[in-house]
């Protein structure tokens, strides 16, 4: 225990040099900015800035690039709350209640809770990396394909809970998402599926194009159609700062979200996304008034935002302790390290203590910077809603297009956004919510991949899902959750029958 503190002390001496503090600040500011701009994600930004870091010393470069990544998690909720455009899969659920809060004039409240929750979660996640990094990494090694499959199943079942309206529509949306997720090259056979011969589709549908169309531009169109929602929006911005009562209500959600995020963030793949979705589902389950969810419940913002930020920190664990990148952003950081002559691997802590502890110390500093940067900005963001909509919607549309293009430098993705805008508009007319669709889209390919891989490695024995303890527990949880969703409607129907 003592070594950790002396090592961390050494880390602070590395991270607190004026130059590294500057890099940390640049990273935090850049991250906040790109988080706010819809579509521009950390992957595109880090890859743009990567060549610029060649000249820097490796510790400074990584401190800056990491700052961009977790900084984007802070900023990502901003557009989700203000204009219903989640910048990343992890802030999709934030948009559900956050945007409702903004429409009720409580945007400031939502943004403040998101920032505070993110700060608490970010610091907690960093403490966990420092104290438990290596043992946690060993834990992820225990996770094999069947366990991931069962985890994804749990995620899909929670997606039903997300819906405010009918469970039938939610399930249909999940299946539509699963279908869209099937597009692209099948890794098992190398065959292209549902690509219509377009090589642009061989890597699957671009997530950013899907989100920008389904949420962003479709939202703009329905706003232009009926001005009613917007009038509510800028006529009564009642509060900017959350009251003590609101803070107390959000406290539990922040704590639960932080724990969920810390745990799921360590897992490769959709860890952070599952964390934010399951945090929302959990809050709705434990709430005494679940009917508030979808109508501006503060817990629906506090939980997922804390979860995704905690996950953003702990997703560094597999990279820093095993040298295994778990996401596109982490893979970019591996590239950055490699270019600086550092091969990230299991020996990185002992060989590069400056880098490891310096980065961890910089995460504390960076999180503090972020909350200082973000809280005063809330006033500015909220005032942004007063910009006449005829100007705001143009800005939204243009920024969405730039964001979509920046992912692959591909104009095909912009056409795809146009197509998904049409789909998003139709879904809105049908009262079908897009969040479960995105959950299906993100988790579908992973469910399939892990299911097939499990069966290959078990030589075709389906019992493997029940024989592994982790997988069994997760499947039992899914079953329990499913029953708890179905039961109330059954009992309700029964009472209806009895009343008749």
């Amino acid at each position, binding site marked *: 225990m003592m070594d950790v503190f002396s090592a961390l002390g050494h880390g602070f001496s590395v991270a607190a040099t004026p130059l590294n503090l500057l890099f940390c600040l640049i990273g935090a500011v850049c991250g906040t900015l790109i988080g706010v701009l819809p579509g521009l994600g950390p*992957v595109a930004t*880090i*890859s*743009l800035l*990567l*060549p610029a870091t060649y000249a820097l010393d490796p510790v400074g470069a990584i401190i800056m690039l990491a700052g961009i990544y977790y900084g984007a998690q802070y900023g990502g909720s901003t557009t989700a709350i203000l204009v219903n455009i989640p910048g990343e899969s992890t802030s999709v659920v934030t948009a559900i209640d956050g945007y409702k809060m903004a429409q009720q004039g409580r945007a400031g409240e939502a943004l403040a809770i998101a920032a505070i929750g993110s700060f608490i979660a970010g610091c907690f996640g960093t403490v966990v990396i420092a104290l438990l990094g290596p043992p946690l990494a060993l834990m992820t*090694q225990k996770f*094999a*394909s069947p366990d991931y499959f069962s985890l994804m199943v749990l995620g899909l079942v929670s997606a039903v809970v997300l819906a405010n309206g009918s469970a039938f529509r939610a399930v249909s949306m999940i299946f539509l998402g699963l279908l869209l997720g099937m597009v692209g*090259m*099948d*890794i*098992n*056979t*190398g*065959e*292209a599926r549902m690509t219509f011969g377009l*090589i*642009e589709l*061989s*890597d699957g549908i671009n997530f950013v194009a899907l989100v920008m169309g389904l949420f962003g531009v479709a939202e703009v169109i329905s706003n232009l159609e009926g001005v009613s929602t917007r009038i509510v929006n800028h006529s009564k911005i009642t509060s900017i700062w959350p009251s003590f009562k609101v803070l107390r209500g959000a406290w539990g959600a922040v704590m639960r979200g932080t724990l969920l995020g810390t745990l799921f963030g360590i897992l*490769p793949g959709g860890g952070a996304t599952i964390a934010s979705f399951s945090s929302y589902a959990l809050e709705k389950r434990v709430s005494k008034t679940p009917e508030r969810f979808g109508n501006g419940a503060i817990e629906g913002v506090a939980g997922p935002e804390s979860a995704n930020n905690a996950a953003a920190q702990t997703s560094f664990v597999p990279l820093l302790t*095993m*040298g*295994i*990148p778990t996401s*596109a952003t982490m*893979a*970019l*950081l*591996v*590239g*950055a390290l*490699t*270019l600086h*002559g550092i*091969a*990230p*691997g*299991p*020996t*990185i802590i002992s060989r590069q203590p400056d880098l490891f502890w310096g980065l961890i110390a910089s995460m504390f500093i960076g999180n503090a910077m972020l909350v200082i940067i973000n809280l005063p900005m809330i006033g500015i963001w909220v005032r942004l809603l007063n910009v006449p909509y005829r100007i705001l919607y143009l800005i939204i549309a243009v920024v969405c297009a730039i964001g979509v293009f920046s992912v*692959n*430098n*591909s104009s095909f993705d912009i056409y795809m956004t146009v197509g998904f805008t049409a789909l998003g508009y139709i879904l809105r007319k049908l009262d079908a919510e897009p969040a479960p669709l995105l959950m299906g889209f993100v988790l579908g390919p992973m469910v399939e*991949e892990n299911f097939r*891989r499990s069966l*290959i*490695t078990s*030589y075709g024995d389906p019992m493997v899902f029940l024989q592994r303890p982790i997988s069994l527990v997760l499947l039992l949880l899914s079953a329990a959750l499913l029953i708890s969703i179905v039961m109330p409607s059954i009992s309700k129907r029964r009472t209806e029958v009895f009343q008749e």
Partner: protein
Amino acid sequence: MKRLLVAALLMGTGLSATTASAQEWPTKPIKLVVPYAPGGYTDAVGRITARFLEKELGQTVIVDNRAGGGGIVGSDLVSKSPGDGYTLCVCSVGAISIAPVAQTTSYDPIKSFKPISVVSTIPQTVIVNPSLPINSMEDLVKYAKANPGKLTYGSSGAGGLMYFSVALFDARVGTKMTHVPFKGGSPATAAVVSGEVNLSFTNMTDALPQIEANTVRALAVTSATRSEFTPKLPTVAETVSPGYAVESWNGVMAPASTPDAIIAKVSDALKKMAADPEVKKNMAVAGASTMFTTPAEYTAQITREVDQWRTLLKEISEKKT
């Protein structure tokens, strides 16, 4: 008649314009397409190449990342670009030698491009989970033959080199191992570390840190000769499968219509690059060995590889039926 004359004249001036521009080339910035995302291995090679060409040719060289379809999207773009020397590609083995054979691409690996030079090569390393009683390639073959279909190997997907190199190995030595595809080489390597799969033929860059930490056991390299990074590791060819050679390469290619004068200029520059100590140092950091080949050698290499994979695929499909 008059119209025909005008057309002929126009064509004449057009032709002379291209030859003149070939002599003066380059007069404007060159676009170097990297068909992979930034931060990856090919991107590193692309940026090292761009920096050297910029110095050597005295023109700005812009790296343009066009990721997608395992390199097919970017390679396809270059094959359809004008052959004026201002669009070049840092292509790689997957999209050029394998994809046109294994799937349908709109380009032909030989007819659609003019290969200029291989700039870097990187072997694969045969790594196994250390809990297995397999300490050499001979052990591996013996174990695989005693337990047909039981050994599992991770790959980056059915279309990638990590799959094809094991498929070729199986066909050559007469073993049968079970293919477990992952989304990319990193998770496949991680699965060997965790023991979810037994082995993989992994890129040297991904394998080295794990070998150093003893989280995996390295048995051999797949290249024709031993690697400068692991001089103690034998090759697959010298142990159990004579003649076996699989290597990942990156090379500069131009659209097929590019004039030979420009090809020669680039080739000269790349020859100097292969001898540059700083380039060598930077390539080594990325885990790659610096290389130079003439356009003719490069073309022959691609032809040979395409042939090897085509034969293998035919063997596999014949065995299935």
